[in-house]
């Protein structure tokens, strides 16, 4: 399984994320079904698939908050969730997880202090998500998109080596979306690894690599270019649908 993608890494640097035979059963539902994959250090990888396909569970397994049923998850050379990783992995949850009764800057400063980042880092992170005009606003006075941005600032503030971002651009205006993607590319060029989930395909073109998931299974680990070639589709939306159709056809055979 996925032998070909293993070969690419043999001479390169060790992968940022190495998942082998991961299965997660939540209650009676198999959220992740025997997934193995590797994510290259310094890359932006898009994690795509319909909602409920296991994206968030996979991300929680990587940050170490998910109890695994089977398999291993190795992050930056250590088991996911190791104490040594807590300063090096930044996690943005799907729902903004910030303290609504605190000001924007106090939220970001708190996460800076938890991870040992400098106080100036908080101001930089607030600026990076375009919230400097609201830095002293109370978070419960903000809109949904603004709260997502504060939550993102809390993940960026520790300057982590691996950023796991669960739908970071949902509900954001197009201008800000472009800004954020530019920033993600800057981070990747600086050697950071980003894993970004989305349930809309129009963001897939920003990613160097794509993981396509459905019903807890990894359908494909590819690139936008290769996905278009393989499926002979120009739109990634179409291409993804083609991959799904092929996998269901293969499964029923």
């Amino acid at each position, binding site marked *: 399984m996925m032998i070909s993608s293993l070969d690419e890494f043999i001479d390169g640097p060790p992968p940022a994320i190495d998942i082998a035979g991961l299965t997660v059963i939540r209650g009676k539902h198999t959220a992740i079904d025997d997934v193995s994959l590797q994510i290259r250090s310094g890359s932006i990888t898009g994690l795509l698939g319909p909602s409920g396909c296991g994206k968030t569970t996979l991300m929680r397994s990587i940050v170490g*908050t998910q109890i695994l049923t089977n398999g291993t998850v190795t992050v930056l050379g250590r088991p996911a969730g190791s104490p040594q990783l807590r300063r090096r992995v930044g996690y943005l949850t799907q729902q903004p997880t910030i303290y609504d009764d605190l000001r924007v800057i106090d939220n970001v400063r708190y*996460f800076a202090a938890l991870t040992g980042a400098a106080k100036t880092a908080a101001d930089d992170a607030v600026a990076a998500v375009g919230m400097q005009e609201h830095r002293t606003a109370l978070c419960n006075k903000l809109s949904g998109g603004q709260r997502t941005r504060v939550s993102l600032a809390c993940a960026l503030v520790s300057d982590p080596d691996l950023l796991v971002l669960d739908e970071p651009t949902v509900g954001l205006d197009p201008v800000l979306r472009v800004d954020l993607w530019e920033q993600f590319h800057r981070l990747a060029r600086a050697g950071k690894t980003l894993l970004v989930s989305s349930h809309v395909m129009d963001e897939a073109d920003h990613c160097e690599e794509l993981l396509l998931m459905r019903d807890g299974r990894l359908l494909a680990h590819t690139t936008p270019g290769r996905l278009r070639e393989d499926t002979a589709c120009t739109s990634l939306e179409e291409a993804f649908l083609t991959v799904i159709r092929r996998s269901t056809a293969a499964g029923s055979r």
Partner: protein
Amino acid sequence: MNMQPYRATTIRILRQLAADHRSMAMVLVVPSAVITLMYFMFRDMPHPPYLPSPFARACLILLGLFPLVVMFLITSITMQRERGSGTLERILTTPLRRFDLLAAYGSAFSLAAAAQAALACAVSFWFLGFHTAGAPALVVLIAIVNAVLGVGLGLLCSAFARTEFQAVQFMPVVIIPQLLLCGIIIPREAMPDWLRWISNALPATYALEALQQVAGHTETTTVTVRDIAIVIAFALATLMLAAATLRRRTP
């Protein structure tokens, strides 16, 4: 030992508390207001001169038990909110240790309880003629220890509440039996044996006994010291149990 996450969390909790002006005012003012109300309620009530006045008895109980009740409520709701909103899971992915978090809650709310107890004692001792044979500082100390116990119980109970509404419902379960059985309503000697055994196992019993010792004895008695130690031990035990309910990994 890296103390920064603990310090940052304590400051963060105090900031949240301070941002809620109305709650802050209630925490500070309500005990003093209720004690003042009791003062006028009992003022004209006759009592035999060889016994402490009914107000003195009631005031002592309120000074000691208000922190327990108020801090239990505030802590269980705040912690439930932290669990429910996902911030707990998020901060546990950072270098914050579980005990840092609990110690931060304990410190922040004890500070609030200390302010509350200091104000209530100032009002009682200076304006309402309340006095104890022992040092007033001991009353404040017992109030703070009770507050820490309230924080511990609140943190523990929040683990069993899915919603803030459920968290409030733990109050009659956890606090009321302690108030009933600690000897306020009927003396413990008058209880059937099995109820006294239960009473012996509840921390509020020792908190009340310590307060009564301070009220009646000029010197610090060994019973007072023992009782304060027992309440502290209960508080630490609840904090330990609460630590066990904090999980970095969930299903």
